[in-house]
């Protein structure tokens, strides 16, 4: 990686407007030394993938709170596959049943952080696993 900063896309997907978590994570990943592109609300799987490609991102971070994680995650994974983005880490955060964590990992999510996660644990995970 050299001295280049890790570049992270942080985004919401769909209509869900609970963005406190996404904004806080974006802000503290920056403080953790990463370059963050915060896409904000009303993104689609396509718009997120396009941003990740345009920005040559190392990580995509998605934030869910309204039960939409099982709707949008497979679509994003599919778009990533279509675009050959094996080298991009896909990380999900937010509120969902623990039962769905394994489901999302099966879909192709690299790591999942629930509410109540401490930010240093996210920074560490990304630093150690970025491809």
């Amino acid at each position, binding site marked *: 990686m050299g001295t280049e900063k890790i570049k992270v896309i942080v985004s919401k997907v769909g*209509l*869900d407007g609970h963005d406190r978590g996404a904004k806080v994570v974006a*802000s503290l990943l920056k403080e953790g030394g990463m370059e963050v592109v915060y896409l904000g609300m009303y993104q689609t799987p396509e718009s997120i993938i396009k941003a990740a490609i345009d920005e040559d991102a190392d990580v995509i971070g998605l934030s869910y709170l309204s039960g939409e994680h099982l709707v949008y995650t497979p679509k994003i994974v599919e778009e990533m596959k279509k675009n050959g983005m094996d080298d991009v880490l896909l990380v999900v955060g937010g509120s969902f*049943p623990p039962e769905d964590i394994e489901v999302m990992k099966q879909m192709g999510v690299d790591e999942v952080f*629930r509410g109540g996660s401490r930010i240093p644990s996210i920074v560490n995970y990304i630093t150690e696993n970025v491809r």
Partner: protein
Amino acid sequence: MSQGPISRSIADKSSEVNWDDYLKSYYEKPQSGRTWSGYELKEIYTPEDRAGENYKQDVGDAGDYPFTRGIHRNMFRGRFWTRREVVGIGSPADTHQRAAFCFEQGGSGLNTIADVTYEMGLDPDHPWAQQEVGLTGVNISSIKDMEILVGDIPLDKVSWSLITASTAAAPTMAQYVAVAQQKGYDIAGLRGSIQNDPVHFRYCGFRPACPLDLSIKLGCDVMEFCARSMPKWHYTTVNTYDLREQGITAPQEVAFGFGIAMCYVDELIRRGLNIDEFAPRFAFYVSCHVDFFEEIAKIRAARRIWARLMKEKYGAKDPRSMQFRFAVHTAGCSLIPQQPLNNIVRIAYQALAAVLGGVQSLHCCSYDEPMCLPTEKGHVQALRTQQILAYETGVTNVADPLGGSYFIESLTDKIEEEAQKVMQEVEEVGGMEEAIRSEWLDRRFELEAVKRQKEVDNGEKLIVGVNIFTSEAETCTPLGVQRIAEQSARRQIQDVIELKRTRDKARLNEAIERLREDVLQGKNSIPAMIEATKASATTAELLGTVREVYGYQYDPMGIIESPFR
């Protein structure tokens, strides 16, 4: 930087028992004497702290101005608070069923919440809506949906809280009134509330649906209509809860909430209403966070500030105009998915604070909210929490039981003083509308949210299961997971498509034209919305028509063109 508590992870079984830690634990004491919002407290409060108090002027009995101790003299001896659990799930039929279930379990008020698509003003057939209909609430796109939601519930006998907060509250009110009228009820007798606080809702992700001018216009249309025609109805519950959920402090919650409330009050006065004509039905929706005494003090301070605002700033004469009446929603953001059954305890403490604070209506979160929408079991458990409080604990016996405590009175003064400082700050940036337009308020929210996270990250704020007494991550939700049936969403989409195909287009076009005309002429939009609703206009059509008159795109998401052009 504090040393933090003796860090213990229940999951960490790798090392031998360290008895020195047990000894340390025995002598352990709280790591700070500060409140959740960060105010340093003394170790004891005494009569000296109250030496300057003028009881009659600053505190007063419950039922007396400035209502610090409560808005009714006999408080819960007169009537319990309304036990109301928020319900919104899948289709109108699903939501009706769960709401009726909560009623059967002893709930005393209905409380239904809109989903994101409804709040955004999108019909289920909108491309952005199709994936998300019913995921977080109920979508009502037409009078038919409202008929199904109401079902056999007698509207003249129940108190119904309609949680639509955005500009879509105007269609919601129209839909509720239209159904009530069709069923033959006199709307003057309807009892309940509508959230109708579109100004605050831009901070909950609904900015496209809530431009500031339109938020004040439609919000006040609902308020004015109800103030004139529905005297028992609370036409807004200004939502300080959602603001608090952004991470702000207790005094900021009061100050920002009142700033937004005054946007509406000022507009209603501009419209020529007398303060005493409408203020007696003004209401709030308040958070109860986890710092027990601070929340009680916050509520008491809010009552005093509101009373004085109404009397001194707005010249209210009717004591009812000065009464801060409020519902409490226990703090969703204080709940965590780690060791989730602990949430039941957090919620119970918060509910107790709300009741000791003199709440009028209470929603207890379900323990499972950090994981999913409430399950049926979660809903019942939350309701039981309220019932145990109401029927077992004796907290209903005496009004404001903590009043007169040297500490509580001092903390009430402190929160009032801090809230007034924040209100002054808002004045200095040019008032609340300017604070919103210039995004000053956005920046405050972001700043505070980051602070809160750092407090948890560095152990300054302790949360059991997060940064103390942690355990291995759960793999399942104790009482099961609430899922939304896919067919519910599909049916909603099909229903609205079918409605749009089969309704009387001439009658619809005429009703929409009248709505457009009324808004153009600066009239209140609600009567025309009611008529258009009866002509099967949909939520998106009502809102889109008004949006266009105000110079906004018909579709908040900018995809669909108006079908009426």
